[in-house]
């Protein structure tokens, strides 16, 4: 059946058709939908794990036992899972295992622009890179064949444009694969004596994979019609841009397998054209490979190492004519993403900003607290870094610093990698104040369940971590829960915990307003006679409140009646319906 699927849904379909029996993942844009789509199949197991390392090891366990498995993550998630990745390269697999990793060139929703291909090279694991949804489906299936044939996990690399673009795919039936499990300590116990014997296997496997890359249909030459006498080596979404610009007028070597790379295939291709351009997003991986083998190519000298490409950027780099385009004289105000009206994070951030507290932040919706007008954050690095970082920050800054510094971390991020930082705080007696912004969901990636919500990926009741008990058991004695809709309560808690000479945790708890079970209250309205135009409410940054005709107004389509602005206003100008 022909249907339009985003690349991620096509990967999920491909994994399913290949007989994948288990997926364990941690959500992360732009990888999340692979796991969400796979969860819709009833005859396969699917879960959210607390982090990518746990997910990858879970998938490894399933492959070891004899069922095809997968794990999915965004590029920075692969950093978290790098530990098992490198050694799984040595153990290999029993049934096939696929690791889906989605890069984010252009950083639409990421903190860096790292190129996952480096991991494939460093861990000596094959990596496939589809360029549209049909390839996403097919490559997922081929990945299992490679995995089992060459005894290796296989990386399937997506990027934002392939992951989130819909194109037409044809689907087929699911097959079932199961391998017997046999104890094999030499292969699966990676103690030095065994690992020393496995390393040569890895090197031999890479040689065999290079042979495969030379002739695999994953890598193909598309002969041009001779209009241009140069040739282009490309992969992934860049291939689509190249075809958009040149059609059949140029010869293209399209690489579907980006690690290991072929040598002779590239040499043969280069010999047939006058000049070779390598067009790849982010780092010059293919380019450097070519140069290492003495093949003269032009890559990053013409095509940027930064951000996403497009048909325009490629045409421009090759000095082709610009298309007609016009712009306006008026500058259009930017529209950055922001915390929603009624977002529970906003109340706590308002209190922190008002008291000029230094705030070490983390990864999630609450990173948006860094934006004006709250400007509440001082640092955001990676998942969990707020909790680990505050201990170092306070140790370096001393008592004065401890009394005006907090860190903030969401419930899901705390589960992901905040717990170990808190263990360090308790163990080493750090006088740090940790605020867990518990909105009872993984928000930014689009509402995934996590171990604190009490539900699993299918929405069924599941184990639930009690944050208070967890913090106590780690050794934090001062743990208190506040409602971020209550500004006075938040302010009192923050001041008191900062004064204490011991580690403390404040759990700021209220569910995300976008959750279906959160019923909005009636919108507020501004009594224009009471409004004194002091603009204090404008410092709160609620998108439902704006300033028109010299007084505040509430947008009734956005306001959910949280009532926090009523606590801010000194003149009681925000009124509930019926007052």
């Amino acid at each position, binding site marked *: 059946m022909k249907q339009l699927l985003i690349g991620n849904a096509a990967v999920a379909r491909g994994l399913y058709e290949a007989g994948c029996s288990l997926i364990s993942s941690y959500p992360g844009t*732009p990888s999340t939908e692979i796991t969400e789509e796979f969860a819709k199949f009833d005859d396969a197991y699917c879960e959210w794990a607390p982090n990518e390392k746990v997910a990858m090891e879970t998938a490894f366990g399933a492959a070891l036992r004899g069922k095809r498995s997968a794990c999915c993550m965004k590029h920075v998630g692969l950093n978290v899972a790098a530990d098992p990745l490198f050694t799984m390269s040595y153990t290999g697999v029993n049934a096939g295992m696929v690791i889906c990793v989605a890069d984010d060139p252009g950083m639409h*929703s990421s903190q860096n622009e790292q190129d996952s291909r480096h991991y494939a090279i460093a861990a000596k694991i094959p990596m496939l890179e589809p360029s549209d949804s049909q390839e996403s489906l097919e490559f997922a299936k081929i990945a299992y064949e490679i995995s089992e044939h060459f005894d290796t996990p296989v990386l399937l690399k997506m990027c934002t444009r392939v992951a989130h673009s819909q194109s037409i795919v044809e689907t087929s039936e699911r097959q079932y694969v199961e391998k017997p499990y046999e104890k094999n300590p030499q292969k699966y116990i990676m103690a030095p004596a065994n690992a020393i014997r496995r390393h040569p296997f890895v090197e031999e496997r890479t040689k065999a994979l290079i042979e495969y890359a030379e002739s695999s249909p994953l890598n193909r030459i598309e002969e041009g019609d001779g209009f241009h006498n140069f040739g282009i080596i490309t992969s992934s979404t860049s291939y689509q841009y190249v075809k958009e610009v040149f059609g059949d007028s140029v010869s293209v070597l399209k690489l579907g397998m980006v690690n290991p790379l072929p040598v002779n295939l590239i040499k043969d291709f280069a010999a047939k054209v006058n000049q070779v351009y390598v067009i790849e997003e982010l780092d010059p991986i293919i380019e450097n490979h070519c140069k290492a083998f003495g093949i003269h190519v032009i890559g990053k000298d013409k095509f940027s190492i930064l951000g996403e490409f497009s048909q325009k950027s490629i045409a421009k780099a090759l000095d082709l004519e610009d298309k007609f385009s016009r712009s306006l004289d008026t500058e259009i105000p930017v529209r950055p993403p922001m915390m929603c009206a009624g977002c529970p994070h906003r109340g706590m951030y308002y209190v922190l900003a008002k008291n000029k507290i230094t705030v070490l932040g983390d990864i999630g919706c609450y990173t948006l607290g860094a934006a004006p007008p709250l400007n509440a954050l001082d640092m955001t690095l990676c998942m969990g870094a707020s909790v680990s970082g505050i201990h170092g920050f306070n140790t370096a800054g001393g008592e004065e610093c401890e009394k005006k510094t907090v860190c903030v971390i969401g419930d899901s991020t705390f589960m992901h990698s905040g717990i170990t930082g808190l263990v360090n705080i308790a163990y080493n007696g750090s006088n740090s104040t940790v605020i867990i912004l518990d909105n009872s969901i993984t928000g930014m990636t689009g509402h995934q369940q996590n171990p604190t919500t009490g539900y699993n990926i299918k929405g069924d009741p599941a184990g639930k971590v009690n944050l208070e008990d967890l913090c106590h058991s780690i050794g934090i004695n001062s743990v208190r829960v506040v409602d971020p809709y209550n500004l006075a309560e938040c302010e009192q808690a923050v001041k008191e915990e900062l004064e204490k000479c011991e580690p403390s945790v404040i759990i700021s708890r209220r569910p995300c307003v976008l959750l279906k079970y959160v019923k909005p209250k009636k919108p507020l309205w501004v009594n224009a006679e009471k409004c004194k135009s002091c603009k204090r409410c404008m410092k709160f940054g609620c998108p439902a409140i*704006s300033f028109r005709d010299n007084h505040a107004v509430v947008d009734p389509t956005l306001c959910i009646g949280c009532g926090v602005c009523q606590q801010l206003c000194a003149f009681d100008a925000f009124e509930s319906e019926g007052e």
Partner: protein
Amino acid sequence: METKNVMIVGVGGQGSLLASKLLGRLLVDEGFDVKVSEVHGMSQRGGSVVTYVRFGDKVYSPVIEDGEADFIVSFEKIEAARYTQILKENGVVIVNTQQIDPMPVIIGATTYPENILDEMREKGINVDAIDALSLAQEAGSAKACNIVLMGRLAKYFDIDREKWLCAIEKCVKPQFVELNKKAFELGYNF
């Protein structure tokens, strides 16, 4: 057939996803090669959202670049203006006249350019402005703005109206089919 390009722009949460789903479904059923591209994640939180829909005999790139769009369908006034450079010389902008203040306007750092559609017309751009919000409310729900705008877009397409209505049936929950069909007709006949 040369590839046709429709860019759908709006503010996170306005329902552009359903609009692109409807359009994609219709075009696949019509036998075109189709690509639809959007970026999820951060952009959902009240930020600008952009969806590209491309169709033709064979579509390669999933994105639309400067000077390539045949249509911009905008759910909000300044979002239409933000992407003027994308429009072809004879392209058409279908725009909902709704104004949604972005945060820099809300906090007073800048002002909302109220007369931006006039400036676009002065630049020779074909602007088809429509109060989609009121028409959607007339159809029964403010949320049907997206389908009102698709109805308007349908005016410019060589595809039978019945086929659009058929695609609506396939894309929305049964209880909302009638409402959305009405929204489509109101946009189409505006």
